[in-house]
């Protein structure tokens, strides 16, 4: 036996629901329709006082209608990132399963993936600390913790099953799906939500601007629900690459090549790629490795902007929508992550 991952867990579960929040709206359908149209969302410039650089942002529109479950007490004072995460998660789960979980009839786990976390409250809390520690808000601080959004999700669901928050780069969502399928294969639960979410703040907007002046900072969430019980619209993960970690012995380009080699699939006729990144070296790595791709491709970043930890989640949601629409039978989701790893998978009609 070699020290590499076995892939038996891929048959353990299918993606049976998905959801998204993005600058295109509060649903997976709006993300897919807009990306298919090829028309980027409207952006606007934002600039702090004091000579800070002007940044370009794309904002999530106002929620058209607040669902009843959003009145859950824990959500009154929580962060934007938590609200995005929960909305995408409930869309992915669906109301019927949501109610079953709340009643204790369905045991599900939660895996939350993020790169920046709760940046708005973190920035506000730290400003208070520097100003006067004795007045720093004890309400803000607990919400700055990386796993606060996933904690609120489990609380909303009344689910005491395993709940992990994984911090990683823009490809982390794919690694999150891998772990969820392992949990289901191991019989730890009857289903698992994988969610990623980010929120914008001038702090992260200006950080992105350092890597590319034309970068568009975005926010939102993506979610999938994995179940061992397939449905009519189920999407199977037929191939999953290893998460190829960058380092002194593996460049992003080499990592992307290894990932691509693992995903060879003659039937795949759509590539949901990650092109549109601000970081030139990472962008070039992905572009060069996939330049020979002849079939159709969708590049969600070019439409909505940089979603950091959400990006591979949005790519996954697009792939699921494409398969559900019947336009495609087999789709490759490929992510050359911003700063950690390259990972990908092949999704097919279940």
């Amino acid at each position: 036996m070699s020290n590499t991952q076995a892939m038996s867990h891929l048959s353990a579960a299918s993606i049976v629901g998905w959801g998204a929040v993005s600058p295109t709206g509060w649903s997976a359908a709006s993300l897919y329709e807009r990306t298919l149209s090829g028309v980027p969302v409207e952006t606007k410039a934002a600039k702090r006082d004091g000579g800070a650089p002007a940044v370009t942002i794309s904002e999530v529109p106002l929620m058209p209608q607040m669902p009843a479950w959003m009145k859950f007490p824990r959500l009154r004072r929580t962060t934007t990132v938590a609200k995005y995460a929960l909305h995408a998660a409930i869309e992915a789960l669906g109301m019927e399963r949501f109610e079953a979980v709340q009643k204790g009839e369905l045991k599900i786990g939660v895996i939350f993936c993020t790169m920046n976390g709760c940046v708005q409250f973190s920035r506000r809390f730290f400003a208070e600390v520097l100003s006067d520690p004795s007045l720093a808000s004890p309400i803000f601080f607990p919400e700055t913790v990386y796993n606060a959004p996933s904690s609120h999700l489990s609380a909303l669901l009344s689910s005491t099953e395993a709940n992990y928050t994984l911090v990683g780069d823009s490809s982390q969502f794919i690694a999150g799906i891998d772990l969820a399928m392992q949990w289901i294969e191991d019989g730890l639960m009857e289903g698992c939500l994988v969610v990623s979410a980010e929120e914008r703040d001038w702090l992260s907007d200006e950080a992105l601007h350092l890597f590319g002046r034309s970068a568009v900072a975005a926010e939102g969430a993506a979610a999938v629900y994995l179940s061992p019980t397939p449905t009519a619209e189920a999407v199977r993960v037929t191939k999953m690459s290893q998460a190829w970690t960058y380092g002194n012995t593996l460049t992003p380009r080499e990592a992307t090549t290894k990932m691509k080699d693992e995903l060879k699939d003659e039937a795949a006729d759509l590539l949901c790629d990650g092109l549109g990144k601000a970081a030139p070296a990472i962008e070039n790595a992905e572009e060069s490795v996939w330049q020979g791709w002849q079939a159709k491709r969708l590049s969600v970043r070019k439409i909505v902007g940089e979603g950091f930890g959400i990006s591979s989640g949005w790519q996954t949601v697009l792939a699921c929508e494409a398969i559900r629409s019947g336009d495609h039978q087999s789709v490759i989701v490929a992510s050359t992550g911003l700063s950690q790893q390259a990972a990908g998978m092949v999704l097919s009609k279940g």
Partner: protein
Amino acid sequence: MVITGAGIITSMGIGWQENADGFKQGRLALRDITLFNASRQRVQRAGEVVFDKPLPPVKLTARQLQRLDRASRLLIYAGHEAVSAAKLDDQAIEEEPLPIWLGTSAGAMAIGEDYYQKKVGSPAEQRGLIKNVILYQPHTQARFLADALGSHGPVSIITNACASGANAIGEAFHSIKKGRTRRALAGGYDALALMVFAGFDALQALSTTLPRPFDANRDGLALGEGAGLVMLERYEDAVARGAPILAEVCGYGASTDLHHLTQPHPQGDAALRSMNAACAEAGVTAAEVQYINSHGTGTPLNDVAEGMAIQRWAGKGVANVMVSSTKASVGHLLGGAGAVEAVICLLAMNGNFVPPTTTIQTLDPVCTFDLVQKPREAELNCVLTNSFGFGGANATLVLKKAR
């Protein structure tokens, strides 16, 4: 699944021996904070690590060495010790991907703080800030560790607050047990940072006296920093390559406490679930567990909830279970706590002692168990360690002495 190597760095010292000596005596290793200005906080003391030994020889480039932040240094000290102790040579690491599972709660928060202050102080200034943005991310620290060891396996970072380190070891354990990998390096780390320190201070969770877990008059915790890492592998592989075996990992349980974002269920419901799950997987009863390294933060609500959970878990045999909290000695290491405390269990099992909690003056009535307050010798064959975090993340590991 066995542990063939362990590394530890805390305010008690750098490495296995210094920590074994200190925890055996129950020595307190809290000191005045020098890393940041804490003069405006209610508390000015923490378990700050003193780097009094050079960084071990590692495979980082000169540029990487120059960029190492405090959290990465903690990781590299512990990671290097774990790999060296496991007698895993460079060739083995190069030939097979070595998965790394890490837990942290704040990563390199101090780098993020520095970025914020530069951005607020000079909004127009952009030079040199890319470095902050890259180094701030926890996976950059993980990459430093991997590169330092010459490893090229997948890296996973769990941020389940104070349970993170135990979760990381538990996931690595399960991945080996289920045949997904042959070995893995796992553990946790956190470095002191002003924002986190101020956060606990704002919650009035920091002790203004001494951290006294399970004392009736406890008034909070002390924060600490450090790292603990273990090399996990299949028993047959360890035996085949003649590796030392420090302990067997035999059970891992995780559960989610829904009671409140920062407060545990008062009866310890979720803690009980994670303890029961870990023991069920390990195939041990409460009567077989001799010692519990408790989460034991020293805050009024946490200790009583954990105490209730231990009572319910142990039943009639509760008086026979030895319990202590090593957070009294080195503080609460947050995302690193679960892993460091697992390594402390290894120190105890291999050194035949129980690490005492020496700061207690008046025992809380919840302590119907044997709360160890003075240095004690004991041959430990089966131990359990609890880790509970913000957000309701609960994790328990069960370790047994090697066969």
